[in-house]
């Protein structure tokens, strides 16, 4: 072979990023807005000089645009330092604001860990948390939910809009109606929904995370509806209507707002396109990988996310094998978590937790990406099973 010639067989195919549910790649609009705001929005928006007024204008515009996309009032929306911070504030602030009503928090078994850790802190401080189960498809048990929120001393309730791990969309409207009947405010974690699907009505507090829609990391949204009893759980700070302390990363906030506006205009078309690709993954994985359990509701689900578990396969080994072939995915298997516990979501559903893979698509993923994944996956799983000596079990 002449010097400098490329042996095409040696060229690794370009990486395929399939973990948008953790963080979508930065949207081009976010990048553009971020760079512009680094020059224009570095000053503190709360001071009385001209640089500050420019920063204030940018922050106000970002808040108005984001509120408009969400269909809420600008003064109901605060930016936070992350989606996790927003979730902590939503849970703890909701409980604090309603402490005269009682100290019971009702939540589904499949909330994000940020919500569960906030609930854990509430319990450590002497409060109570009541967990409501889901079925095998990851759907909230609505009867159990209605009973739980109607119990004595319930201060607030938390329900994820759609499972970040298995994609099952939750019956938020019905759950909200059960809460409304007895005046319990509902917090909805909409991290996987904002920028992809319409936000269901009926909530009192809502949170989201910019990196899930292609905004930069380090920006969360906390929306507290007018009239909701909510009190900041943090030490007093006058910023963001007193709801979240500390100086905002304004360039990142501006980028988050600009990219949300951009993805919202295209959300319905992307949802249709990605849902068809996810349907293909669900069908082909079930048909072409032996002993696999595709989990989550096949119909009432997020457009971009699918989860499956491969019997007898080590989840960590599977993630590494996929990474070597250029595929970035995440897993709910215990061996892939720092705590070595299986995903509480898979556990609550009673589905296989080892050999677990979550694929989540973003606007940049093509049909060719999905085809390459589907073509390579059966061989990767078969190799791992052969290495482990579990073929034919």
């Amino acid at each position: 072979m002449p010097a400098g010639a490329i042996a095409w067989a040696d060229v690794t195919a370009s990486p395929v990023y399939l973990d948008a549910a953790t963080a979508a790649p930065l949207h081009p609009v976010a990048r553009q807005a971020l760079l512009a705001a680094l020059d224009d929005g570095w000053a503190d928006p709360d001071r009385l000089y001209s640089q500050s007024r420019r920063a204030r204008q940018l922050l106000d515009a970002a808040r108005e645009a984001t509120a408009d996309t969400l269909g809420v009032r600008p003064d109901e929306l605060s930016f936070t330092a992350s989606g996790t911070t927003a979730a902590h504030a939503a849970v703890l602030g909701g409980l604090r604001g309603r402490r005269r009503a009682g100290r019971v928090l009702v939540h589904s078994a499949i909330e994000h860990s940020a919500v569960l850790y906030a609930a854990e802190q509430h319990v450590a401080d002497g409060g109570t948390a009541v967990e409501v189960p889901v079925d095998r498809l990851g759907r909230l048990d609505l009867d159990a939910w209605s009973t739980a929120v109607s119990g004595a001393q319930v201060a607030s309730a938390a329900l994820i809009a759609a499972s970040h791990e298995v994609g099952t969309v939750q019956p938020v409207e019905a759950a909200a109606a059960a809460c409304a009947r007895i005046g319990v405010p509902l917090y909805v974690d909409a991290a996987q929904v904002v920028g992809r699907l319409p936000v269901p009505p009926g909530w009192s507090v809502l949170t989201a995370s910019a990196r899930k829609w292609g905004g930069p990391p380090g920006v969360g949204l906390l929306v507290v509806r007018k009239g909701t009893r909510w009190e900041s759980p943090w030490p007093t700070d006058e910023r963001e209507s007193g709801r979240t302390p500390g100086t905002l990363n304004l360039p990142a906030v501006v980028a988050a707002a600009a990219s949300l506006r951009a993805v919202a205009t295209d959300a319905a078309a992307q949802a249709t396109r990605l849902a068809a690709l996810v349907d293909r993954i669900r069908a082909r994985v079930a048909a072409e990988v032996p002993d696999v359990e595709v989990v989550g509701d096949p119909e009432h689900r997020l457009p971009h996310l699918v989860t499956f578990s491969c019997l007898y396969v080590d989840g960590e080994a599977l993630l590494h094998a996929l990474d070597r072939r250029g595929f970035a995915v995440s897993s709910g298997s215990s061996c892939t978590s720092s705590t070595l516990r299986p995903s509480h979501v898979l556990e609550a559903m009673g589905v296989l937790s080892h050999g677990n893979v979550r694929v989540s698509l973003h606007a940049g993923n093509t049909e060719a990406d999905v085809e390459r994944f589907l073509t390579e996956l059966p061989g990767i799983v078969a190799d791992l099973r052969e290495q482990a000596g579990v073929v034919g079990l």
Partner: protein
Amino acid sequence: MSAPDGQPDVVLDCLGQRCPLPVIALARRLPELPVGAVVRVLADDPAAAVDIPAWCRMRQQEFLGNAPGPGYDVRRTH
């Protein structure tokens, strides 16, 4: 609930093993036993509590329930 008389026919000690190893051990051993036999899998990996019942469902074997150990009792049904 465990085996009817409380005593399994076979005990598989998978303590200290990470999933999927306890499930693999169960899948290897159960077919060697007669239909109706009960295996107790001792496993302290928290994932076993999820994965052993899930395996029984996928393979149409009977999950009898948790046992001390922590353990999981499974009856061969076919």
